[in-house]
């Protein structure tokens, strides 16, 4: 039994804990920051909604670099952002950005898709851009980057550098985007070294450093000497450095987490898309469409290759990169068979936009299950 005094004092201490802790949490997220206030009247205001903190060094950090890039280049632009917005709260914060007077609003997580479409109906005079989704309307456009292109180039490096012929891949969720990245990486590796196998481990999370660490350590324990990943932390690079194996960064240059391990990596340049959208919005020529930009538009890149990448491989990577920028080379060019032997892309053809966006098969030589739901 609990007596009354005990209960009262305990209740008070719980309440105090809740109040202080709760206040700290409340003031913590999501925070809002006004970045600039230009003096001219003729300006355009753009707002961003981020799913993570801008300091995550991954997905949100890359988007924020893009925001800064656009702001630096466009003198008519004022920007504002709200970070760490949970997907269920998206509509509330979109309203807030509209109240703040934003003319263009970027929502940067797949989970904001329906909220963005709904907001488009509520505010027909504003422009909305949703990242990574497929639903569009009169005033809601979509954008994404061809991340598979740098993954392919990183695959070339991995295939050339591996000694055990075993590559590892720490992957967030079995969805077409991630499957496309894994296949592109493996495609590049197989081109350099037909004996390469790529081991895939799913961690079922975008942001779980501990799961990423366990998965990476497990892969290294199986003799894997080059790691790639699609999730939002730098953990895999750190684990690779600790264990003396190689890795690639994702979204931003992660070489500071593993100066030796970090062979290269995939870089996102969201800024060029933001600049294009905002110029169009400012000059009144924006219309709703899907941006899917890659090397050709400068929306993706690879991180600087470190000293462990052989110079002939460096030259090949640079050459392929230049060809992709002119659209004279595309990794997913037929014939492409899946690992069950079915022809997926006929000889000489390039995989179409829809094919790439619905890719749910593995190429031969990829080890691990591909759960389909």
């Amino acid at each position: 039994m609990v007596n009354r005094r005990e209960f009262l004092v305990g209740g008070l201490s719980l309440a105090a804990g809740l109040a202080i802790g709760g206040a700290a949490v409340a003031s913590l997220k999501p925070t809002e920051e006004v970045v600039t206030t230009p003096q001219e009247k003729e300006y355009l205001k753009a707002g961003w909604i981020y799913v993570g903190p801008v300091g995550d060094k991954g997905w949100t950090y890359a988007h924020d670099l893009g925001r800064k890039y656009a702001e630096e280049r466009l003198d008519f632009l004022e920007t504002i952002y709200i970070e760490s917005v949970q997907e269920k709260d998206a509509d509330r914060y979109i309203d807030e950005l509209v109240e703040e007077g934003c003319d263009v609003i970027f929502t940067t997580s797949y989970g904001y898709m329906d909220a963005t479409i709904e907001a488009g109906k509520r505010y027909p005079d504003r422009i909305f851009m949703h990242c990574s989704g497929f639903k569009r309307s009169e005033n809601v456009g979509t954008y994404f980057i061809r991340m598979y292109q740098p993954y392919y180039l990183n695959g070339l490096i991995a295939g050339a550098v591996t000694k055990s012929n075993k590559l590892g891949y720490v992957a967030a969720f079995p969805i077409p985007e991630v499957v496309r990245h894994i296949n592109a990486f493996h495609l590049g590796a197989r081109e350099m070294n037909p004996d390469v196998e790529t081991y895939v481990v799913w961690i079922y999370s975008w942001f779980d450093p501990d799961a990423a660490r366990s998965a990476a350590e497990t892969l290294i324990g199986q003799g894997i000497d080059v790691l790639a990943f699609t999730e939002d932390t730098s953990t895999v690079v750190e684990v690779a450095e600790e264990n003396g194996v190689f890795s690639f960064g994702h979204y931003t240059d992660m070489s500071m987490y593993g100066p030796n391990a970090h062979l290269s990596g995939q870089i996102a340049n969201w800024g060029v898309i933001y600049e294009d959208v905002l110029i169009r919005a400012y000059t009144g020529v924006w219309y709703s469409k899907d941006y899917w930009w890659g090397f050709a538009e400068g929306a993706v890149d690879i991180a600087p290759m470190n000293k462990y990448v052989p110079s002939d491989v460096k030259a090949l990577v640079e050459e392929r990169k230049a060809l992709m920028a002119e659209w004279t080379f595309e990794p997913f060019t037929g014939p492409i068979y899946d690992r069950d032997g079915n022809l997926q892309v006929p000889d000489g053809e390039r995989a179409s936009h829809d094919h790439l966006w619905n890719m749910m098969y593995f190429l031969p030589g990829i080890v691990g299950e591909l759960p389909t739901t």
Partner: protein
Amino acid sequence: MFEDIALFLEVSLSAGSVLLLAALGEIVAERSGILNLGVEGMMSTGALAAFYISLMTQNPYLGIIVGGLSGLLLSLAHAFTSVTLKANQILSGLGLAILGIGLSGFFGKPVIGMIAPSLDIIAIPLLSDIPFVGVILFRQDILTYFSLISALVLGYIIYYTKLGLVLRTVGENPEAADYMGINVDLVRYIAIMIGGLFAGLAGAQLSLVHLPTWIENMTAGRGWIALALVIFSLWNPMLAPFASTFFGALSILPYYLQIFGFRVGTGLLATIPYLGTVLSMTLISMSRFRKYLGAPAALARPYIRGEKELYK
């Protein structure tokens, strides 16, 4: 095959050692009759403090010390409410957990994603060359070694010294301890502080070894799992390393099974440690089971001289 198993156990041990440190501290506290549910909060604070100091001074060892002390400092709040004010320990502990997570999330905001010097793996010469055992036990970081040694030392103190007898008496029968002239409140204060110190160290291990960075909510429920470990090790520090390694193994099993091609629901497997926690928390809140498992008889019961009858 042997190598695979050794490697699996090595990773399990290191994955479980964060839990081990926190569980050892909680065992000491619970042995004195104090249930401190605030482990998650103290760990979170310890993780941030350790990371912050390591970042500022570039000295991870200083980070360990400050991390431990910050856990200790926070535990004093629980000591004050539960020992001095004789408050309900469950409520006070929950408050502490929320307070610690909130405070560390708030003050940690500026350093999210930064890199601090981390602790290296120390392979002990000669011993680490022993096949199997050497790989598992002697290629770990300093805090894992510390946690294993602590398990032995605390086990010895609790079962074989007068100090341990005093601690156990306070936890089993504070009235008797009081008659014998033992200062019950003082013993409980010290036990809670030891619990806080270890929880802080567990946090330090998390942010300096496990994931050498700071992110919000990085404890991810480990403090609660540590509470379950206390029960699984039957309040015996020497059993705790086995329980923690078992939980560590559970947490990495999904990834191993994927590589070896087992088609199992990995998401489901990952929930096992948490299910175990829920189960054991249910058991410990039923007084009949508590006695059966060998819990300290006065666990979670404030001691007020002369008011014994109120709690029966």
